């Protein structure tokens, strides 16, 4: 009340410093800001710096320039890892979204036992990647799993052995990954679909637009934020792909299902070559930034001006 009564000059002098506005909430944020700066930014910077050294088991500051990176990019296993991740990422992104959305759309058609189906589809997500990997390793094992089952039914020439063939092993991993992850995407999509106003559907029906066309032309564009959330979740899952591979194939046969995160861990700890592991993890960071920065610029940079 007093401020409104004060003359204009005095009000200008008393204008609160921006830094001290909402002081309490800023104090409360300090621990989180420090954690983010010291642990995430600090740790990242430390890793990048040490990737230019010849550290072996213990970190030491003997700089060797780009040697670690030269070795990294001339290593067959790293190249295979990158290709595998690109293939897995591309297919898993598309399939997760398509399967997740289709399941959600089907559940949204007011079917019976929706709750039961939702639980069944979401259930694999409750399993860790290690359990998923081991379970699918058994299912895809030609001697005990699916192939054996179909052969026992009488189709004796049936062959389905993706994990032991270097050309198809990534698809074996993909099956397990999609099985585990698409339930969550379905739930997010379903939540998005439930957020669509019932009147939109009525209006579409009045205009005589078909169901599929309504989904593709009206509903999906309206669900843009939901799709962005789903994409971020899927993408982070792809980059950190590690435990599924370790449990299901351990990179085999040969090196045909290796992934970058496994290269990092193996060279940091098994090969006791921190420098090489850090170089590989820095490359992973760079590739994430290359994808993330333009996207963030479009998403957030545009909004500020508009």
């Amino acid at each position: 009340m007093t401020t409104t009564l004060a003359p204009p000059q005095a009000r200008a002098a008393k204008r609160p410093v921006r830094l001290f506005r909402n002081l309490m909430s800023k104090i409360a944020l300090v621990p989180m800001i420090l954690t983010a700066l010291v642990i995430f930014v600090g740790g990242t910077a430390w890793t990048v710096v040490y990737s230019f050294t010849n550290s072996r088991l213990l970190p030491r500051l003997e700089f060797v320039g780009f040697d670690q990176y030269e070795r990294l990019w001339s290593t067959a296993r790293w190249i295979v890892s990158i290709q595998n991740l690109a293939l897995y990422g591309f297919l898993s992104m598309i399939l997760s979204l398509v399967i997740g959305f289709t399941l959600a759309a089907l559940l949204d058609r007011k079917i019976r036992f929706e709750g039961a189906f939702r639980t069944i589809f979401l259930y694999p997500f409750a399993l860790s990647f290690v359990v998923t990997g081991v379970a699918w390793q058994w299912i895809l094992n030609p001697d005990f799993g699916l192939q054996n089952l179909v052969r026992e039914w009488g189709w004796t020439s049936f062959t389905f052995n993706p994990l032991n063939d270097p050309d198809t092993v990534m698809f074996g991993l993909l099956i397990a990954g999609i099985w585990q992850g698409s339930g969550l995407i379905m739930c997010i999509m379903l939540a998005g679909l439930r957020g669509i106003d019932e009147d939109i559907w009525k209006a579409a029906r009045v205009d005589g637009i078909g169901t599929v066309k309504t989904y593709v032309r009206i509903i999906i564009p309206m669900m843009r934020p939901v799709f962005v959330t789903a994409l971020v979740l899927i993408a982070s899952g792809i980059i950190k792909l590690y435990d599924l591979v370790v449990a299901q194939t351990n990179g085999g046969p040969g090196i045909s299902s290796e992934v970058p995160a496994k290269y990092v861990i193996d060279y940091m700890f098994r090969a006791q070559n921190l420098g090489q592991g850090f170089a590989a993890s820095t490359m992973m960071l760079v590739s994430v930034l290359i994808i993330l920065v333009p996207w963030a610029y479009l998403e957030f940079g545009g909004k500020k001006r508009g």
Partner: protein
Amino acid sequence: MKLTTKLLAATCIVSASAASAIELEVTHWWTSGGEAAAVTKFAEAWNATGNTWLDGAIAGSGGTARPIIISRILGGDPMAATQLNHGRQAEELIEAGLMLDLTEVAEAGNWAEIVNPPSLLDSCTLDGRIYCVPVNIHSTQWLWLSHAAYETAGVPVPTNWTEFVDTAPALREAGLQPLAMGQQGWQQNLAFGAITLAVAGLEPWSEVTINKNAEVAAGPEYAAVFEAVVDARELARGSNVQDWNQATNMVITGTAGAQLMGDWAQGEFAVAGLEEGVDYSCLPGLGLNAILDTGGDAFYFPVNRSPEITAAQLELAALLISPEVQVDFNLAKGSLPVRGDIDMASANGCMQQGLEILASGGVLPSGDQSLTPDSQTQIEDLMAEFWSGSMSAADAQARYASIIASAD
């Protein structure tokens, strides 16, 4: 205040009881049947002294266990003792002062005299101080043959690698797997090492592995090695098991003709109740060159702040190399003892052959002792790719030579 007093009292009780019986946590990766039987011998001997052996077995071969062990030591939560392969794996940990100096125990026990071959103790030594106890000798150049499989195929059991390659088609015809092979890089690397020594012989091997001579690695002797590995790769086609003991099991049950594996495979045959010479035979040096490498396991004792634990660590170090424990442990494990002065009369034919080779001096240091884990991992990656795919011998050799050239 009350709670603090209670806690203090509790701590006093704990430390008082700890003084009489020390509990030492020992980590290792001995988890297969024969290995577990062997490590029990250590635990029993240690428990018999009135102390407690807290077993910290880590499943899934050294590649999985070593990172866990090392990060625990680096993270300031060291175990009391741990298995590692002696050689260059713990080099930097010792340099950083994280490992207990055992020199006094070693001098008291006169290790310099009793350990045979002396190269084992050399691998434990850094700047004249001793940091680990070698407990066994493992050699990797062994071919294990299933008599049952050869009976099924109707051909005599081969006596060397060349004969084995010749008899392989007969095994295939009988619907058997000629060569059992676990699909893990280290096993493929082991097979490669065994074939190298058998085919190329000692000179080129030591030139490449010890002196890191890349020219020899690219030369004609090694070209023959890579050709032989291509043969072996064909014989191992269709073997889809992962772990080494699963592959050994194929030989035990007679579904595979042979396996290239270290002498620790013997423990599995013993657990399965098979008899050497009747149910299976073994060919050291693949029956071609009577040379064995002498890698093995050693125990390291990370530095600990408590003086009681330190004293117990030294006591355990002396116990592990004592004669009775060495005999019991190595008989169960199927490995050779590190002491030349004990009676191994109860050992079976395979171990006797190994002991003879050891006594006659046909020994060389293992790859672990000459190459860094970094180079080893690179070679394992190459071998994993080479064995499972269709890479040509020449390509593999060129890449092998470049790894050797960059090794330090």
